[in-house]
């Protein structure tokens, strides 16, 4: 027998359930006075550099019905393409932009809104630039393990065309599932959990 590698196993995931708001956005669901505000609810201040945009995200189930009990987190680079993270070794990110946000889907409409900035381009592992994108993490009742995907931008056609991650999608018909549509200053993005338009989810 060989030596043991002494590795642990990642804790198995369990669904966030229907009451995820209590833990992650308590003020949103009427539990006031415990935290001053819900973490991740505000991403910008007056000093934040970059083009202001609004993301309007919905998460749809296999019948096309929007989820009204989901929670979405986003993570993105600043306007210059730097992450506000200790693992960002290329430079210093905008100190007025954490780059992380968290929003519940509206309990009536299922829409979840993020006021943020358009991210800059970040290099892929080999140094080529990826297209501007925002990483998404989605949890809800009925989702056994959090779903990872990305939001790209419809008005970045050139960059999207050379993006190394989009290029890995074998079925080209599915590429548009990752591209949000510009409407004025807003980007509209529907995440389809199932069906013909199922979003490309990641294992990375």
């Amino acid at each position: 027998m060989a030596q043991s590698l002494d590795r642990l196993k990642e804790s198995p995931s369990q669904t966030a359930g229907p009451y995820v708001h209590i833990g992650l956005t308590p003020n949103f669901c009427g539990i006031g006075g415990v935290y001053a505000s819900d973490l991740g609810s505000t991403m910008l201040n007056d000093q934040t550099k970059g083009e202001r945009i609004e993301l309007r995200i919905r998460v749809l189930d296999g019948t096309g019905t929007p989820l009204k009990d989901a929670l979405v987190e986003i993570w993105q680079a600043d306007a210059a393409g730097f992450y506000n993270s200790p693992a960002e070794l290329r430079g210093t990110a905008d100190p007025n932009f954490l780059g992380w946000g968290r929003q519940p889907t509206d309990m009536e409409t299922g829409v979840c809104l993020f006021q943020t900035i358009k991210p800059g381009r970040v290099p892929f592992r080999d140094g080529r630039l990826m297209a501007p994108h925002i990483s998404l993490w989605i949890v809800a009742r009925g989702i056994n393990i959090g779903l990872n995907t990305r939001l790209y931008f419809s008005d970045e056609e050139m960059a999207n065309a050379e993006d190394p991650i989009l290029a890995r999608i074998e079925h080209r018909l599915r590429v548009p599932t990752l591209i949000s549509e510009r409407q004025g200053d807003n980007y509209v993005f529907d995440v389809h959990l199932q069906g013909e338009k199922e979003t490309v989810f990641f294992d990375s």
Partner: protein
Amino acid sequence: MAESGSNQAPETGAFFQRDRQWHPPAFTPGYKSSVLRSPQKALLSFDNTLSELTGPVFGHAMLGELDNDLIHNFAKAGESAIGERIIVHGRVLDERGKGVPGVLLELWQANAGGRYRHKKDGYLAPLDPNFGGCGRTITGEDGGYAFRTVRPGPYPWPNGPNDWRPAHIHFSAFGHGFAQRMITQMYFEGDPLIWRCPIVSGISNKAAVEALIAALDMHSTIPMDALAYKFDIVLRGRRSTLFENRPEGN
């Protein structure tokens, strides 16, 4: 470069591949809500880029004094939540067995009667006016953490005609990289409902289920005050970058 709160150089290696056989699959028909909410197509696999390797830092300064004390953080002055008083403590480790400092842990749970403070919960067990049900903390240098709370009650839920959730606490863990993000549930040693639960049963490996069951920890109890349960959480490990080529811009 953001402050890491530690003297050690930040780690930048890619995270270990997730073992999807160990986690519950997306589609677990015994848990009905998963049927229409489970992706059915193959996931797109790729090695981590900076977008997955990086993550925000949460500083201890954001925490309030009672954030990790669910017995008191929603209670009126001088009062406290009703129920079996417990300490929940442990460490957040990664798959290499290293303690992970600076992890934001957020938890939520039902009250001692099994009722959540949420407008969607119509269970007939009463709300406790002194219990909100949420708490948070950030792990210390060794990955350690502790909460004070009451043991949540089990409760019935609309799935099968007579399904009951075992007593559980929801945990959200935010490590150093966005790809480490995870949510799970902690169960209590000896609860016979664990092995009857359709959500738990989505995990096919018995050892994986057992990894979510907190052990009664008599050495950490507070005599005449609170029992204690120990619950360790494991996040994805990180590859060493020692022998990796360093591509431009990385």
